[in-house]
Each structure stands twice: as structure tokens, then as C-alpha cells.
């Protein structure tokens, strides 16, 4: 995120697109609600009438996958009506002419035909956003989980940059990161292209420093991202797998194919806290400590590094993941240092990571969280990015064209399936499924369907139906709801039962740059079970 969570209560306008904030990031949603209580304006763009739309001035209910059309039409309006920030564009952006030329073809009237959002609504949002200083954009996986996810983000970045909303408190472009430490895991180099500290593997000077630190030569070839690793498993290119703390057989798309691939693997190591779906395929399972049983740090969505502290002992022989990893590396013959505590691991990392060098466990214990970039021990951290101009000098505007989603509906699969989260469960569900409260709210998977589609299919609310995609099928009850429009159905991604996993249906095609799969759009059909 360019900005920080505590800034949001002071926003004057919030534009939330592809983020079901009240369910996926409830406490950030509270900050949004506080802004609204103060009188801020809220615009929500989402194919579903999510909870936030109740409080929104406008709900732009665009068709799934039409985001680039919608956002380019906003940019079109801002430029056509001369509402952009001329000084910011002149001083801090590149490629404005090309963008302006491209978006000429994205007039709100045409956008209306493609997105289903009335042209006037698009204009109103464009005007309100461009003319409000403290206007922040929020997005989540509704923007990124598409085969054109990177394009969606570029389109949003264009809108933010040409209206000068960067480097301003309570504004900016704010991707709300999904997991407790998804930001940190990437920062630490759990990324095929990046070494720790967000530094490129391809950079020989960076590699050389880590080679000295670790005492070995490092591989130079490009690594595979998660989507490519999964495809590699299915193709037989990957023959051995190490998995820590992820239930890939719930969270990855097209899991039936992945199961088939996992069956072919020669060796799978799993570090887990519960017997997950993935454990069924592991050759060895190493029991790990959960967050309450170990020390370390997480980095949250606003780049804030915060301490994790041991409060209770792990059960049985379970051990913190970091200790297991040290011993595993040693068992492989590598002299992994004998770290006394996670603070020592952090210190090793920061020695070679300038952006994080000012942060230490000791400082975190004293000062609480610190937001990187934080290069020196006396640096206060960076709550807002791009203050006084973009960090890289100028924002490169990307003129992105609309590309349709990979799997449009057909007569055989006439409905679009989109997926997401519910408030009461978390991701794979291995933790929340074992708690009473979440199960009182949701204990089975379901498919949310519009009244008209349900009527056309002749299914009642709560009736068990078969949802089929080109990859698999599940039998789940319906939830007839006005949240979705006819033609769209929606299912949560959590695991309620092995046979009803939503990701048996989803499409594993990924974005060409990030590899992020198109969880938000695939084609399905729904049939009554009673009739067959």
C-alpha cells in the first residue's frame, strides 16, 4: 500500500474496487466506516452487492472481468473533462500522451455496454474522485485474480497518478494484502525473482553479496512462480516439493488436476500445524508451532513490521518452523548457523537488505511496528510512500487495453463463477473450521445465485445442486441472494469438505506477468440433483 491504515479514517472519498473489505479485512473496513461516519463519500465497484454497498453513495456493479473497461472509462472522463492534475502529470509521469490516446476509445457510453455500469455513474465517480484531494483507492483480489490482473493494477495506477493522488495523506493506491504475512514473505525473498529485501536475483551485485553472506554460489536462472510450480507438478517437470504452512489442495485453482500431479511426485515434505488436505500427499509431515507458540515478525499490508511473540508452548513435539528449517538444512549438509533466536535470523537478513536495515527485533520491542523503507536505526519508517514525488522519479503510465477473461460463458457452461471469502472463515479454513462460532455462521460450502437464475433452473433456496466446470464438479446447497446479478454465481474459497472444495472448479490459467490465477472468473453450469 502507498498509504497507512491509520490514515483512512481521515479520507474524504473512498473508491473500493474488487475488495469485499468488511469480510476480508474487517478492521480496515472499520477505519473506512469511521471515515463515512465523518461524512466521507464511498464508491464501490464490485460485481456483487457486497456489504459496503449499503453505505455507498454509488455501487458500480460491473461485470466480472470488465475492470479495465471500467477504469479506462474513468481515466477517459478525467482527461476528457480536463480534471487531471496538470502539474503532477507534467512533472511526475511519463507516457501521458499514449495513455490519453488509448483511452479515447473507452468512452463511458461504450463502457456501459461492456461493463453494465451506467455511463453517468462512471462520470460521477470520475468527477468526484478527481476533484477530492484525500481520495483513496482500495483493491484486493477482485482486481488481481484475473488473467489480466496486472493490467487492472496498471489501469488503477494510471488513474491515481494523473489525478495526483500519490504522496498525499489519506489518498494513494492501496492493495489490501490477504494474509498476515504475505507482504513479508515476498519481502524476505520467498519469490522466484527476488532475493531478501526486495532485491532482484538478476542483479549480479546483489547476488554477490548474498553469496558472501551464505558462503555458496547462487543459481542465476529464473525460478518458477507458484502457478508455474503447480503446472510443473502436473507436467512432470517438478518431481519433489517442499511445502510450509500452505494447504495447496484447497487454495490453488483446479485442485483435481493438482492432486493428480501430486500423486506422480517422487517426494513431498510438508510442515504444518494440522492434518491438511495436502498432508494426504506428503511423504513426511513435520509438526510446526503456530503463531502463538513462536517468536518472529510479520509484515502487514502497510509495510509495517511487527513482532510475533511466544505466549504458550507448542503441542507435543511440534517445533517452530524456523528451528525445523535450520535442522533440515543441516541434515542436507549445509552449515546453517545456529541461530539463538529469530532476532539473529532477522539480523542476518538486514545485513544485506538496505530497505529494512534500520529495523531490528530490539527496536520493534521498544517502539512497536516500523514501516519500511527504514534504512537506518534512527529512521522513523515510512508511513506514506511517494511523498514529494514518486520514488522512481516518474510514474510510468501504462496504456493497457482490455482483454477478455480466459473462460467466457458458453451455452454449455452459461454462468460465470466468481469466488471469495466470508468474514467468519479464513482461507483454507484449517483454523476457523475448528472453531464453534464460524461454523454456527457457515458450516458448509454453498453457491450464491440470483433469484432469476434459481427460478430458471427451478431450484429452491438451500436446495442441493451440482455445479460443474470444465475441470470438476461439486454438490452444494444454493443461497438465493440479491447480491449477485443473473448470470453470476459466487462461492467461498474455504474448505468445508474435501468433496465440495470450490477450487475443484476454478481455472488455473494465470496472469502472464504474476502467474496469479483467474479465481474470479470461470464458466460453470448448475443442475438440479433431484431431477437427474
Amino acid at each position, binding site marked *: 500500500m502507498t498509504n497507512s491504515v491509520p490514515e483512512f479514517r481521515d479520507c474524504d472519498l473512498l473508491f473500493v474496487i474488487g475488495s469485499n473489505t468488511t469480510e476480508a479485512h474487517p478492521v480496515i473496513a472499520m477505519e473506512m466506516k469511521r471515515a463515512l461516519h465523518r461524512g466521507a463519500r464511498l464508491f464501490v465497484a464490485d460485481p456483487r452487492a457486497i456489504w459496503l454497498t449499503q453505505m455507498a453513495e454509488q455501487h458500480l456493479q460491473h461485470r466480472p472481468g470488465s475492470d479495465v473497461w471500467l477504469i479506462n472509462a474513468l481515466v477517459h472522463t478525467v482527461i476528457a473533462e480536463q480534471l487531471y492534475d496538470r502539474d503532477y502529470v507534467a512533472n511526475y509521469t511519463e507516457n501521458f500522451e499514449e495513455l490519453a490516446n488509448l483511452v479515447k476509445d473507452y468512452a463511458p457510453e461504450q463502457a456501459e455496454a461492456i461493463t453494465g455500469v451506467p455511463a453517468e455513474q462512471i462520470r460521477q465517480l470520475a468527477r468526484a474522485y478527481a476533484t477530492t484531494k484525500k481520495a483513496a483507492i482500495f483493491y484486493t483480489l477482485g482486481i488481481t485474480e484475473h488473467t489480466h490482473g496486472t493490467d487492472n493494477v496498471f489501469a488503477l495506477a494510471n488513474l491515481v497518478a494523473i489525478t495526483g493522488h500519490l504522496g498525499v495523506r489519506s489518498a494513494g493506491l492501496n492493495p489490501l494484502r490477504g494474509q498476515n504475512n504475505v507482504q513479508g514473505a515476498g519481502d524476505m525473498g520467498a519469490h522466484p525473482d527476488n532475493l531478501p529485501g526486495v532485491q532482484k536475483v538478476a542483479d549480479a551485485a546483489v547476488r554477490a553479496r*548474498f553469496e558472501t553472506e551464505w558462503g555458496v554460489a547462487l543459481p542465476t536462472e529464473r525460478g518458477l512462480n507458484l502457478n508455474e510450480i503447480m503446472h510443473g507438478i502436473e507436467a512432470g517437470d517438478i518431481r*519433489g516439493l517442499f511445502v*510450509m504452512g500452505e494447504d495447496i489442495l484447497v487454495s490453488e485453482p483446479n485442485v483435481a488436476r493438482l492432486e493428480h500431479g501430486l500423486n506422480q511426485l517422487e517426494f513431498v515434505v510438508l510442515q504444518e500445524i494440522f492434518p491438511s488436505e495436502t498432508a494426504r500427499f506428503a511423504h513426511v509431515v513435520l509438526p510446526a508451532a503456530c503463531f*502463538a507458540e513462536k517468536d518472529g515478525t510479520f509484515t502487514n*499490508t502497510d509495510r509495517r513490521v511487527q513482532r510475533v511473540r511466544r505466549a504458550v508452548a507448542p503441542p507435543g513435539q511440534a517445533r517452530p518452523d524456523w528451528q525445523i*528449517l535450520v535442522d533440515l538444512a543441516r541434515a542436507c549438509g549445509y552449515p546453517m548457523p545456529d541461530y539463538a533466536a529469530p532476532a539473529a535470523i532477522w539480523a542476518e537478513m538486514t545485513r544485506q537488505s538496505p530497505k529494512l536495515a534500520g529495523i531490528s527485533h530490539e527496536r520493534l520491542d521498544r517502539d512497536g511496528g516500523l514501516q519500511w523503507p527504514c534504512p537506518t536505526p534512527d529512521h522513523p519508517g515510512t508511513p506514506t510512500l511517494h511523498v514529494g514525488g514518486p520514488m522512481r522519479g516518474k510514474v510510468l503510465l501504462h496504456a493497457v487495453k482490455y482483454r477478455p477473461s480466459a473462460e467466457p460463458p458458453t451455452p454449455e457452461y452459461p454462468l460465470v463463477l466468481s469466488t471469495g471469502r466470508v468474514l467468519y472463515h*479464513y482461507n483454507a479454513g484449517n483454523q476457523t473450521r475448528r472453531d464453534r*462460532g464460524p461454523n*454456527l455462521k457457515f458450516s458448509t460450502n454453498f453457491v450464491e445465485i440470483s433469484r432469476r437464475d434459481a427460478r430458471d433452473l427451478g431450484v429452491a433456496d438451500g436446495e442441493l445442486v451440482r455445479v460443474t466446470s470444465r475441470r470438476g464438479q461439486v454438490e452444494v446447497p444454493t443461497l438465493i441472494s440479491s447480491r449477485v446479478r443473473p448470470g453470476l454465481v459466487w462461492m467461498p474459497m474455504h474448505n468445508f469438505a474435501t468433496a465440495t472444495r470450490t477450487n475443484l472448479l476454478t481455472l488455473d490459467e494465470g496472469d502472464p506477468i504474476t502467474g496469479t490465477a483467474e479465481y474470479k472468473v470461470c464458466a460453470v453450469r448448475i443442475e438440479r440433483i433431484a431431477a437427474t
Partner: protein
Amino acid sequence: MAETLTIHIDGRTLVAQSGETVLQVAKRNHIAIPTLCHDERLDAAGCCRACLVEIDGQRRLQPACNWPVSKELRVQTSSPRVQRHRATLLGLYVADHRLDSDGLPVHTTQGNDLRSLAQGIEFKRLLSIDSPRHPRGVDANPYIAYDPDLCILCARCTRYCDEVEAVSAISLAWRGAETSIATAGDRGLLDTSCELCGGCVDVCPTGAMHAKQAPRFEKPEAVQKVRTTCNFCGVGCQLDLNVQEGKIIQVTAPPPGETVNDGNLCVKGRFAYGFVHHDDRLRTPKIRGADGELHDATWDEALHYAAKGLLGVRDRHGPHALGFVSSSRCTNEENYLVQKLARAVFQTNNVHQCAAT
């Protein structure tokens, strides 16, 4: 823009910004004014009357929490008149509260601000009033309960539910001595717009709104609080794990103003910690045997088996036949070690995490 001005509290000349309240300026300067209905996250309600002070030019005492500063404002926070008011007010509150054997408002684990006030102020003893406040009907929700006998009607819970969580699931209901906190149609919270965030429990000054699964009247010294970061979504809420005899017995939010979450938590962070001590947790390393089942092993056996298996794949097919899936749920330090394992030990950049899901 805020204007800087000076005001005078108890004879001290203090700097203030226009738009601030008397309470804010007093608090910043360590001048104690009692409050019950005040919470920094909420609009000032001025309803508990505990913070009334004398303001020059005002005939009546006025609430410090809701009185905006103005140039050269003069305020008395502990004049005899203010003290008389507090003694009576507190007497009224105590007369309508559950008392312990010392005649003080009962201690609750989450704290009882009324008890703390009563311990510090000489108050009038009045005849006990047994208000017929409406109790909550049957409520199957597993997390939040309401005890009308401890309620002082400060409305922090209902205002939090309106202003911060914005679901308006609970409300003041009934009239006079029967006034209580209720849901629409007296339904259980599971059947209302409530999202079980537990903010009502967090803001309650007396423990009337309380967590069902937590001890209610324990002494605090038995409970150790460990500040940590929530392990669910990416907001990074700070929370305090309340530990007793090696078990987490409750999760509470740090006070507002200190952390990224400003004292707020959601249903998962506050209540869904049951997984930590769940029977299903993996306790022993396991190796898959020839029968296809996982069997208990020692750490030494499991680690060497894992190392041998991964090295075997590398030797047979090369380092690029290995994939390392790290975890966005684990710590930074652990993610660092996984990529170090992949790169330094196995010589592959095939390492990623579920950044996309």
C-alpha cells in the same frame, strides 16, 4: 485550519488547538477528569455526566468530553461544586450496581471503571435500587453475553456498534429504570446484523458486555498478557493473548491510540483462537510407510528422511525439479530460511508463496 490558543484549567495556562475538547487538553496535561462513557474512537456523548466540570460563564456544570476549547477558556475540574456533583453521581451509579462484600462495584476480569472510580472518590451511600433492566433472552452466539446488572447505560457498546462497526445490531431499548441494551425483536446476536467483532465487549467500562468463553471475575495477576500480531488477514492487528496456566483463555485488544488497529479487532482475531489448543494439532513427526499410511517417527528420523528425499530428487533430476512453497502465514524469519534453503542448499530459485490467494 486549527488555531493555537491558550486555556486555563485549574489555574494552569495550557496550549490547545481549536477543535479540541477540554477533556483532550486536560488528558494531554495529565489533569485527571473521570469518565465512563468516553472512548476516543466514538463521538462524544456526554451522557454519563462523570466528566462534568465548572466552566466560567456557564451556569451549569458542563461535560469536559464535549466542550470545545475557546480562547482564554477557564475551567475548574475539582472545585467543591464539582466534587459534590461527583459524590452524588457516583452514589447513584453504585446504588444501581452489583456490589462486592466491601460495598464496592464488583471486580471484573476485563476491568470495572466504576469500581476504580469508587475506590478513588468519597461518594454518597444511597439506598440500593434494583433496576428491573431487561435481560437478554436466549442467545446461542458462542462469544458475547450481556449482564444487565453491571450495565450503567453509558451506551459505549451501542455507539461503537453504530459508529465503528456500523452494523447497529444493538441499541438502547425500553424506558426509565427498565432501560437496557437490546437487539431488534430481542433476537440472539446470530440472528441480527451483528458480525461478532466483540467491540461491545472491548468498550464496556464495567464488564456488563463480556466474552462468554473468558473468565469473568478472576484477579488480573493470574493472567499474563502477551502482545503479538494477529495471524489471520493482512491488517496486522495487534492483540494481547491472555494466558493462564499455559493456555490462551482470551484475546483482548490493546488500548486505542497505540497500534495499527486502534483497539479494534474482528470476530476471527478476537474469538477464533480455539485452533491453537485443538486436539487435531499435529504433535509428532510422521513418515509415510510402505502401507501408504503416515506413521509416527522421531525428529531425527523425519528430518533425515526429508533431507534424503529432497537431495535424491535433486541428484536424479537436477535442482530445477524441486519446488519450494513458502508460507505467507509464517514469520519473516521463516520465509527467509525457506528461500535460503531453496537457493543456498538446493541451488534453485523455484521458491514462492501464496501471494495470489
